């Protein structure tokens, strides 16, 4: 994972959000964690140019207002937002949710475990995989850009509109 970019967690449950935060701290994952309580807040965050674009979105499915599937429909229909990898992190094992998520281009679907050690292992694996993966602006980042503060819009870059 690109350490200077935040991870966006979209989850309405405070306890779950705390578990993600704790696992990241225990695993020494230094990315800033930004949290949105539902899909609508997440879209607002992502469309605001003053906000830093996350390297990864961790998405819960069952949320009020705009749920995870509705969020995906909006995000994956947006030419800029569609490039940000989304990993579903949910308690739902339902095949319908899994199929719908993959049809909406998710890059992983992890079922949350109530057991902290197992949960932490999921977060570790997500970090390991996305650290190994190349993502677009990891390579074009200009030498003189300050970490996390680069204006993609000005540079005509791919992420921000």
């Amino acid at each position, binding site marked *: 994972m690109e350490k200077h970019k935040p991870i966006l967690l979209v989850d309405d449950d405070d306890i779950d959000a705390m578990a993600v935060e704790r696992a990241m701290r225990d695993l020494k994952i230094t990315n800033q964690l930004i949290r949105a309580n539902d899909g609508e807040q997440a879209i607002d965050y992502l469309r605001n140019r003053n906000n830093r674009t996350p390297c990864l979105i961790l998405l819960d499915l069952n949320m009020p207002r705009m749920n995870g599937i509705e969020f995906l429909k909006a995000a994956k229909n947006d030419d800029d937002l*569609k490039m940000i*990898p989304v990993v579903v992190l949910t308690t739902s094992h339902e*095949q319908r949710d899994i199929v719908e998520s993959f049809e909406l*281009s*998710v*890059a992983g679907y992890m079922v949350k475990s109530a057991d902290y050690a197992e949960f932490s292992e999921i977060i570790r694996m997500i970090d*390991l*995989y996305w650290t190994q*993966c190349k993502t*677009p602006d990891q390579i074009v980042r200009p030498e003189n850009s300050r970490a996390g503060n680069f204006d993609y819009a000005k540079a005509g870059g791919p992420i921000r509109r």
Partner: protein
Amino acid sequence: MQTVQPILLVEDDNIDAMTVKRALKDLKVTNQLVRTTNGELALGYLRDDSRPKPCLILLDLNMPKMNGIEFLKVAKDEQILKRIPVVVLTTSGEQRDLVDSYKLSVAGYMLKSVDYKNFLETIRIVDLYWTLSQMPELAEDGKSPPGLCESDKDAENVPALADNE
């Protein structure tokens, strides 16, 4: 992977295909590896309902006839095929390839290392991650598709199936 479905490797280079096969063997990944040498042959395989659908596609980008990006354009426009996660495995770190791939819904983009130990580590991480992830059913009606079992004969006739070792 949790499933018994094969992994589809779309790769024109024989040496690279052998390296993937070797890595899977060294990592004791038991999924069958099916190989096609370009995007067009991959689509032919994927559209053939008598063949087991793969749980994962490992996709090279630079290939003759139909390259990786062209393959993604077609596959990600088809209801069932779009569900299958595609991980790009390439030597190209070019910005344009990265952007095109992510816009076409890839679920990962790994650079091939010429060093075997590093390459093995990449494949190990891909395997671990996709073993942990849930996988979508690939039948339209939610029932198991035909040939979802690990019978080797299913892929014997696939063009350019890797047959080293």
